[in-house]
């Protein structure tokens, strides 16, 4: 049954996640993403028994123990691949990984024999790796998310449309994620900005219009008889539209929070999927810089 297979995969990925916690966050996330994709591909490729528990076990057995996979990711590279790229021409500050030792992550055994001296010096200086779709979101993906979020505020509507075009142009997202990015929320943060402006206007106008805090407001500015009567009755809790003030404010607040949280949640999700955002964005602001 498919459910059994799903459960086995979930257990395996959970063990991998635990083991990968010793790796730097971006490498760990990348590894988990690759292995998850591998399992999905292998299951899709399999015979009719796609979700069959034994077929899934076979796939996972071939992949190997999560601890072994993580150890390979953490241990020093072997032989000629042990040395990092030559230092010449490498902009160290732009590449946090290059400052990171290849080995010695806490809790991971070193299986042995890399020799740091035998490197690639013999092959001449390597060009800075051109890596459009590397471990983190590329410039295209980050630009797309920025335009989706605030493009519509800076250049009303047009900026957001640019974001949508970039979103659909990038190969880095699934169709469903592109739909999410387009539909939540159209205009990005333009909606809450307008809402806030609108709410500001709405609170100014009624307060001047219903200045009738007393019981008799013969001088009330309301035009219709209905309003006039209410004012005479001394109820100041009514606004022009007939909604109680507290309800109008609550609705506006809820709408405002949703309109702010929606685009931001979507943006974070898109950046995560593009392989960029670390688990705690504040910890490594450099990770959000375009590579």
């Amino acid at each position, binding site marked *: 049954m498919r459910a059994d297979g799903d459960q086995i995969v979930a257990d395996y990925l959970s063990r991998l996640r635990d083991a990968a916690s010793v790796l730097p966050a971006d490498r760990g996330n990348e590894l988990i993403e690759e292995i998850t*994709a591998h399992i999905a591909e292998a299951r899709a490729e399999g015979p009719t028994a796609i979700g069959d528990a034994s077929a899934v076990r076979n796939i996972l057995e071939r992949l*190997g123990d999560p601890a072994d996979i993580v150890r390979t990711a953490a241990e020093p590279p072997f032989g000629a691949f042990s040395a990092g790229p030559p230092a010449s021409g490498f902009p160290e500050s732009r590449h946090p990984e290059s400052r990171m030792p290849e080995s010695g992550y806490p809790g991971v055994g070193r299986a042995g024999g890399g020799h740091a001296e035998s490197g*690639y010096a013999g092959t001449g200086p390597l060009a800075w790796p*051109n890596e459009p779709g590397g*471990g983190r979101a590329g410039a295209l993906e980050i630009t797309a998310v920025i335009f989706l979020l605030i493009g519509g505020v800076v250049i009303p509507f047009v900026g957001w449309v640019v974001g949508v075009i970039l979103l659909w142009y990038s190969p880095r997202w699934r169709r469903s994620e592109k739909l999410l990015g387009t539909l939540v929320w159209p205009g990005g943060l333009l909606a809450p900005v307008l809402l806030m402006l609108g709410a500001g206007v709405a609170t100014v106008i009624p307060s001047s219009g219903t200045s009738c805090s007393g019981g008799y407001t013969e001088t009330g500015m309301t035009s219709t008889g209905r309003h006039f009567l209410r004012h005479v009755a001394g109820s100041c809790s009514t606004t022009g539209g007939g909604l109680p003030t507290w309800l109008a404010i609550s609705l506006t607040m809820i709408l405002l929070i949703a309109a702010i949280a929606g685009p931001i949640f979507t943006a974070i999700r898109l950046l995560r999927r593009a392989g960029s955002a670390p688990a705690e964005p504040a910890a490594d602001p450099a990770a959000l810089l375009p590579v």
Partner: protein
Amino acid sequence: MWRMIAGDAGNLVGQIRRGVLPYCVLAMVGEKERYGFELVHALGSIDGMVTGEGTIYPLLARLRRQGLMETTWRESATGPPRRYYRLAPAGREALAEFTGSWQRLRDSVDDLLASSGEDPF
């Protein structure tokens, strides 16, 4: 001094395999670009080449970080986007160098092994 002990050959083969595996990966993306699953599956099908398919992914990441392979993301009709790997100029250089060394070493060892019965010294 280094002493040979029985059973050491198996360990040695493991180390040789570990050493040549990165070059095998480079060779596989030399002609056409391939995506991760495709590469891993192909390597996993070669008898004795890898012990766990999952361990190839960290190797791919390392070759990418070292600038020996370049990658491009492409959408897939069926699932999540796939990362395609191809040989970078530096990788091509490294592979060419290894190919020459490997062939010389292989020929020398073959010759020695073949002649070892005839002329002990």
